């Protein structure tokens, strides 16, 4: 029975069916299956499958996002049981996200959040119009690895620099990395404000975040982009 259950879990992710994923997660708890096993032998296989399909051009962004949402639903259903058993899913890193103060454009930022959490990051999305201090305070509170900050306007993009400077002032860099995004952001801007990474789209952002976390405390000053140079 269990292999079929794992397979159904993977399939619920592939179908982007959050309700089915949640229901299967509950079923697993009732059947006494270790939540980590449910994730690693079931749900994650679905995420990987969709990711592979996307890479070879057979799946598209909405399928990727729906798979991400379904994965989130499954994991949050399993979380209380993991806590009860004293286990935890290994997270790739902790990311605090927000659209900068004065700016309400959030679609790209939200997409980045979904893709990051599907990839295994713990994401705190603070929404739009977020002051620099709020981003930094949250990063300290949750011991974040990365702050991701977006802007759509050239007039608000300038505040991305303030995030970098605020972290510098507190001596939190290079421990906390800064990723920036938004239509007006260019690689030259990223270099000028000495941010750690940037990507033009959400898929690339995951790759950059993974590299930044892998760099960890290696104190590299290299700026990471999603595209090969």
């Amino acid at each position, binding site marked *: 029975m269990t292999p079929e259950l794992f397979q159904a879990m993977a399939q619920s992710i592939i179908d982007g069916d959050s309700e089915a994923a949640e229901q299967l997660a509950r079923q697993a708890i009732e059947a006494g299956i270790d939540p980590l096993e449910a994730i690693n032998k079931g749900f994650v296989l679905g995420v990987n499958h969709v990711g592979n399909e*996307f890479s070879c*051009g057979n799946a*598209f*962004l*909405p399928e990727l996002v729906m798979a991400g949402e379904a994965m989130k639903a499954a994991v949050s259903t399993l979380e209380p049981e993991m806590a009860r058993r004293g286990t935890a899913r290994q997270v790739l890193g902790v990311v605090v996200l927000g659209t900068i103060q004065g700016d*309400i*454009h959030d*679609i*790209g930022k939200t*997409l980045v959040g979904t893709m990051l959490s599907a990839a295994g990051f713990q994401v705190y999305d603070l929404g739009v119009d977020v002051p620099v201090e709020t981003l930094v305070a949250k990063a300290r509170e949750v011991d974040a690895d990365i702050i991701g900050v977006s802007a759509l*306007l*050239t*007039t*608000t993009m*300038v505040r991305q620099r303030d995030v970098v400077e605020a972290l510098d002032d507190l001596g939190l860099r290079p421990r906390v990395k800064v990723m920036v995004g938004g*239509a*007006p952001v*260019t690689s*030259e*801007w990223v270099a000028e404000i000495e941010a750690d990474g940037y990507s*033009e*789209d*959400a*898929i690339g952002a995951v790759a950059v975040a993974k590299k930044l976390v892998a760099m960890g405390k290696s104190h590299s000053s290299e700026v990471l982009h999603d595209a090969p140079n």
Partner: protein
Amino acid sequence: MTRPIKSITDPKLSLGILTPEEVQRLHQATLEVIESVGVRFPSKRALETWAAHGATVDWETSIVKAPAALIEAALKKAPPKYTLAARDPAQDLPLDGNHVHLGTDGCGVEVIDLYTGERRRSGLKDVGEIARVADYLEEVAFHWVAVSAQDRPPHTRGLHEIKAIWDNSTKHVQTESIYSEAEAHAAIEMAASIVGGREALRQRPVLSIMQCTAPPLGHDGGSLEAALVGAEAGVPVGFMTMAACLTTGPATLAGNLVVGNAEVITGTALIQLACPGAPVFYAAAQSASDLRTGAYTGGGPEDYLFGAATNVLSDFYDIPLSMGSFATGAKQPNWQAGVDNSLSTFMASIVMSDMLLGVGFLHGSRIWSYAEMLMDCEIYSLIRQMMQGIVVDDETLALEAIRLVGPGGNFLTQKHTRRHMRELFVPQFMDRRPYNEWQEKRDGAADWATAKARQILETHQPDPLDPRLSAELQRIIDVAEKA
């Protein structure tokens, strides 16, 4: 000396894209969305206006739900026709349904340097130089702020930009980069000083204001307040939706039109509730998001169809339209840029969109290229000529010339030929040379367009703004900067 503007007028071509029944369905669906789902207006002033007129306002979420009758009655107050004034009255632009006027695109963040060919961040000098080249080009009828003056403070950047344009051109300025009440007040003061006061500005609006909505179903607070300031002063204002299939709008084209329409007509209705009879325009640059990256594409069949469909909606509401065309995602002036910009501009033109935005960009309105600007103008010229269609009358049937030449021979020496040859299109940047000539030189459209842009920039002298006026504009900016 600036040459007369070449707008599209008296077209012979037409296109059927939506039936009257389909337009009704789009309209009814939009009203249903506005009434039952609502649209976000994050501005105290906007919410108070809505509430005073009987709309349901959620003060927590800033979401307004308005009954159909309120929206429809408000939209009826909008004037169907008016004129965008220019510093030089000979360049005034009638928005009367029988003209298509071309503008520069905006608001980009980088420029391909005209001399080094390097890509670099945009600054105030670029704003002025682009305006000067646009002033010369007879295809370009008005300006958007083409690129962002990133070397000026954010809170007055939009003011520096419009001054730089007025300093370099006599054509109408439509700003799309003023997003706050304070900046809008100063911009109105600047425009008023150019035409000789507030009353004169109502008669001769040398400035118009375009604001982007925040799809899906939202507006930006600062943008709303800036638009209200403009409308109070009698300056034309418009709301542009860029709702994109998959991300900020539904995957289907009709659904995306509904979302965008709900944003635009609620913004427009708000203006009419606050300032009945104020000149307004519909604006849109809808597109589809890329299935792989989610990026706004600015091209593809969906984009081209939106270009034609939106004018049917703005005609239904009987207000002028400012339509996004061009805006290719191509990284260089290449095949993709040619396909995107030709088809999108053709579709937006054939339905007689009043304003077309606009020439000059690569990478989805981010990187300014003078070469692309001039090649876009050539695309527009081709379409303008096509729009005249085929004239059939005694003279054009050319029977006399055909008789004179008979079978064999040629028409080169006919008087009829001399009378009509200049009606044929003469391209500036199409390569029609013999093959060996190309083989020797290996140059092409982008090289010629770049050379032409350099020549314009080096030689064109626009009618200067009176130095005292320019100083007055600077004074207004200085005051705003200190505020």
